[in-house]
């Protein structure tokens, strides 16, 4: 019998002897992975959604008066010195009027008699399309308000703040569920292995008396943890994928999910979740073996 065949043989025997506990452990690991990966999936999609929303995001700095090109360049320089931005566009009174006309389309008649200079000139600042810039928009707008000639600074302040709070909350939930995943998987697997060791106390003693190598004794217990982690994580992800399919089918059409373009984990992230779950269970297993066998 080869080394690995003997280890598999022993593991099979262990699993048969403690199948009830094994199923409970598998269930707990699956549930932990499901909870964590659910929130992680929501978080990733919200973040991705946030990035899309930023395509339209800009800060409008209304100016008291038109400024000359040299002044425009100076203001742009000051803005770029303060933070990195995508682009800075100057909109004169005339350009603003034309834009409004374009937006009104057939209703442009309402502007008749108003003259083309009633709109204030402005500078449009397009922040960088990354998430950290979202949190910096408030700071940037406060800075822009201090620039000479500025009459008003406008952006989707309340929406951005709510979005910021929401992402912070999600991040907290993801971190908490990640912590929960680590605690439950490590603890539960370590506890199960300890039960296995206790259930097999006589057998392990007999093995030691017969001269079994440490690997022969520890190998099946480590493999047990590995299988629990791998299968538990796999079941967790399969459950999540089923849930994802159900939700996307049920809520297809215009709505929240379409707005976010909700997608599942990439193969790389799925593999990383599987690996993490498996490694945590192997860790729990090793922890328990060292304690129980005092090796």
């Amino acid at each position, binding site marked *: *019998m080869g080394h690995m065949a*003997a280890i598999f043989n*022993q593991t099979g025997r262990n699993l048969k002897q403690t199948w009830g506990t094994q199923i409970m452990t598998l269930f707990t690991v699956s549930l932990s992975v499901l909870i964590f990966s659910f929130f992680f999936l929501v978080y990733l999609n919200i973040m991705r959604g946030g990035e899309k929303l930023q395509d339209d995001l800009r800060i409008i700095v209304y100016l008291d008066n038109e400024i000359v090109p040299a002044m425009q360049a100076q203001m742009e320089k000051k803005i770029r010195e303060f933070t990195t931005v995508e682009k800075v566009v100057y909109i004169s009174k005339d350009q603003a009027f034309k834009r409004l006309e374009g937006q009104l389309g057939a209703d442009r008649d309402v502007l008749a008699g108003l003259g083309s200079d009633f709109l204030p000139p402005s500078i449009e600042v397009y922040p960088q399309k990354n998430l950290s810039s979202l949190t910096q928009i408030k700071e940037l707008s406060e800075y822009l308000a201090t620039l000479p000639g500025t009459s008003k600074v406008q952006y989707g302040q309340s929406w951005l703040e709510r979005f910021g709070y929401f992402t912070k909350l999600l991040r907290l939930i993801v971190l908490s569920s990640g912590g929960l995943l680590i605690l439950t998987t490590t603890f539960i697997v370590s506890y199960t292995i300890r039960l296995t060791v206790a259930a097999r106390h006589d057998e392990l003693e007999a*093995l030691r*008396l*017969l*001269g*079994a*190598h440490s690997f*022969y004794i520890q190998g099946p217990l480590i493999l047990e943890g590995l299988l629990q982690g791998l299968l538990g994580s796999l079941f967790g992800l399969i459950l999540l994928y089923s849930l994802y399919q159900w939700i996307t089918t049920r809520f297809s059409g215009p709505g929240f999910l379409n707005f976010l373009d909700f997608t599942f984990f990439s193969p790389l992230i799925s593999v990383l979740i599987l690996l993490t779950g498996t490694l945590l269970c192997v860790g729990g297993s090793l922890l328990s073996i060292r304690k129980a066998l005092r090796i």
Partner: protein
Amino acid sequence: MSDANLDNIDLNNFTRPMVVAVRVSKVYIPDIVALKDVSLTVNKGEMVFLTGMSGAGKTTMLKLICAIEKPTKGLIEVAEQDLTKISQTGLQQLRQKIGVAYQDFKLLPKLTVFENIAMPMEIIYQNSVTIHNRVDELLEILGIPDKKNIPIGKLSRGEQQRVAIARAAANAPPLLLADEPTGNLDADSTERVMDLFHHLHGAGTTLIIATHDESIIQRDLHRILDLKQGELILNSDPRDNLANYRQGI
């Protein structure tokens, strides 16, 4: 070392001893003396009987030889390895070469006869066919071929004892220790067990059999090491073992 103790070491065969004990004492807490200044050698390929009344120290001696216990004092060497200084890996390797039939069997009641006997062979990664053949052979010799797939818990004491002996003999180890191997057996089973021991002995295995069963001592011309209250009182010549044994007792 005193002269009396040196006398107990077989100097003629000192070049190739399997077991050497020099002034070995074992004291259990608080002050129970199990062995006192015991010196002996057992040569490679030799078969010896370790005799004595209950509590004489036979089981303790066997436990020291297979390194389940450590001596309080003295030196024990098995296959030229000092058991008081042996590493964990060295101990594992040594134990693979010692078959032990324990007095309390140390079998696993939930596992079948086959699984119990297969354990020492699985540990050294024997292939499945070899394991099955060897288990069948041993069960045949010991007269319990029909018990192969029965859990140990459902066997009689005598049958369990034979399984314990089969497990000890499974790898045809260089050294086999048997503690009261015929204690629960009828005459026929005793005969089968002794046949197995003789077969192993013929193949070169060193056997140390702790017993007070006079019937198995009488039939063989093997050296007797007789213990009394933890002291070695007789190290007989194989040629007149029975007479010495009777006198010793």
